[in-house]
């Protein structure tokens, strides 16, 4: 790892400027209730289209890092988490704010987030090159099993209902079948539209799933959250008190950041799952577990460190195997692929600049977040007063031009609408979106490798286990499926017995 090379890249004025702007953008979007970190990235994507791959990766990393932290702001002040990653400890942060300490709480969370993010990227930078070494000799068998294992993990961590998680995955895979197939080059489910021959364009798809579905949900909710009366303490005393609080709990930060990175690395388990688990672990090991949920800062520190560490962790499978760890890395992979780069082990030898930029951007974004995140905390009460009647219509038009800018055709707007409605339907049906996103991203990879292996083996399925690594990955996948079946059976029969 060449630290000097990393810093030379990220201190380039163009990259540094991008990171600074995107941390401000991420902080603003993350702070607004109803606008998630994934939505921030989806709206950013049309702009990344006009950047080089390195700058685009820096922009995505910086936006996500700050948006995940900034989700705490509306959580603390309005009790509405700005992003789902802040939901785990929203009760605590809100109650602390109500006792006249909103800024102290948010600065404590900011310090924990920055520290968590830095630990996350340190683990990412150390672990990914080692894992890449391992995966360099993979054939289509291993690639198939790896992608299938990634999808199965997404189903496993998706939500409480196994059939719904599976349905979400299959919907994503079904969307991925649209376009010309790999076996004979026949257009599938394109309804005669030439624009669909290359498949559903990824960027309008993501804008539809993450931006339009949120707008539709917000429109249906039909109300603006109000701040009410809030006592805000002086800025400097808040920073001082927050620093003291943070220093007392540095062990929590290290524990939750390490755990958060590992959880973030599991495909489908993003920053929100990391925060929930870190919060639960924190309560388990706390000397005052009874205070959790009643305005206890310990849970805020643990959750805040874990969700920002998970953001970095999610890049581990994305960089090493090309399998996204969460929705944001799914979008990032889509962006890199459209720029002709395929994430995977070879990226560590062929595109070291990109890899170094990602590591460096994470570090710089976390450092700059002290400044931009602090600024947004200081101005939080003003930011949260921006009327949604101004913000939401602008996002609606931006979403549509963003999609149009990529394809240069109104088909993008129809894709946005179709997938926005699909995502809204899935949310109504109680299905998690993450497995579907992974299905859309990995569908082609799974099918291509499956068909290549089928052709090689002339349809003999045992050949999928013939190579050692493929056998291990295949067995792991089958074990995850068995665990899923057991879980589904347990929740069905177990609940039926208990309800008698």
């Amino acid at each position, binding site marked *: 790892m060449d630290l000097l090379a990393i810093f030379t890249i990220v201190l380039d004025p163009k990259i540094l400027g991008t990171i600074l702007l995107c941390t401000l953008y991420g902080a603003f979007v993350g702070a607004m209730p109803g606008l998630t970190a994934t939505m921030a990235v989806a709206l950013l994507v049309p702009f990344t289209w006009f950047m080089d791959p390195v700058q685009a990766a820096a922009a995505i990393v910086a936006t996500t890092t700050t948006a995940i932290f900034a989700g705490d702001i509306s959580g603390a002040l309005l009790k509405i988490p700005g992003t789902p990653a802040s939901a785990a400890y929203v009760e605590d942060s809100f109650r602390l704010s109500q006792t006249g300490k909103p800024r102290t709480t948010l600065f404590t969370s900011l310090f924990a987030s920055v520290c968590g993010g830095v630990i996350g990227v340190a683990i990412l930078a150390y672990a990914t090159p080692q894992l890449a070494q391992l995966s360099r000799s993979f054939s289509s068998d291993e690639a198939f099993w790896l992608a299938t294992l990634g999808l199965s993990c997404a189903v496993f961590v998706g939500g409480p209902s196994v059939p719904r998680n599976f349905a979400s995955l299959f919907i994503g895979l079904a969307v991925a079948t649209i376009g010309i197939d790999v*076996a004979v080059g026949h257009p599938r489910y394109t309804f005669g539209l030439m624009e669909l021959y290359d498949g559903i364009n990824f960027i309008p798809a993501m804008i539809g799933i993450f931006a339009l579905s949120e707008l539709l949900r917000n429109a249906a909710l039909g109300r603006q959250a109000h701040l009410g009366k809030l006592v805000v303490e002086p800025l400097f005393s808040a920073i001082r008190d927050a620093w003291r609080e943070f220093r007392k709990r540095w062990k929590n930060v290290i524990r939750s950041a390490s755990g958060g990175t590992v959880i973030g690395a599991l495909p489908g388990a993003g920053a929100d799952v990391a925060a929930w688990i870190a919060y639960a672990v924190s309560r388990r090991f706390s000397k005052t577990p009874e205070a959790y949920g009643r305005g206890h800062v310990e849970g805020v520190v643990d959750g805040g460190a874990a969700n920002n560490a998970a953001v970095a962790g999610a890049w581990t499978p994305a960089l090493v195997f090309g399998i996204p760890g969460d929705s944001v890395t799914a979008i990032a992979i889509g962006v890199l692929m459209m720029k002709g780069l395929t994430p995977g082990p070879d990226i560590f030898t062929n595109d070291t600049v990109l890899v170094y930029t990602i590591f460096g951007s994470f570090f710089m974004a976390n450092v700059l977040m002290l400044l931009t995140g602090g600024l947004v905390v200081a101005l939080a009460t003003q930011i949260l007063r921006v009327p949604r009647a*101004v913000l939401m219509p602008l996002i609606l038009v931006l979403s549509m031009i963003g999609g149009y800018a990529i394809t240069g055709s109104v088909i993008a707007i129809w894709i946005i*609408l179709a997938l926005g409605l699909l995502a809204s339907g899935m949310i109504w049906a109680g299905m998690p979106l993450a497995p579907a996103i992974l299905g859309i991203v990995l569908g082609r990879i799974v099918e291509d490798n499956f068909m290549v292996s089928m052709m090689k083996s002339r349809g003999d399925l045992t050949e999928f286990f013939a190579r050692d690594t493929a056998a291990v990955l295949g067995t792991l996948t089958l074990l995850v499926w068995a665990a899923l079946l057991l879980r589904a059976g347990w929740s069905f029969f177990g609940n039926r017995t208990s309800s008698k």
Partner: protein
Amino acid sequence: MILRRDFVVGAVLIALAVAMIWGAQGFPRIRAMPYGPDLFPKIIAGGLILSALGIILEGLRNMRSGQDQDEIAQGKVTPLAAMAFLGIVALVAGFALLLPVLGFHVAAALVLLGAVRIFGGNWVLAGVMAITAPVVLHYIFYSLMRVVLPWGVLAPYAW
């Protein structure tokens, strides 16, 4: 009779799977290969059907144990919320249809007028947004980012 959410979801998924299988019937095959472009869609359709059956079973279990009351409450939609939802859908569809005909400025202004009203803004705010925002967005995308946005009816006045 209240149509329970799980049954509706299950039925929709099965319908989607049947449509996928039906569509895959027409995909061509190469004689030497026992499988072709229809294999993967059929596997996915099979998965959708199994998931749908699982969801329907869950629904039956919840109905028997009386655990579905929360779900029914969640699934209820007020007429106002439905109108707002459909309003946004109509605006997006309208934008797609009108963009090539009327051009970006007019189509975006119409969308903004409607969207500001749906999100609770008054007519004055809607008017201000409809006039200013398309010009600013056009400058960013057309002039700075070189995205070719159609001028439509404003083509004689293009700058």
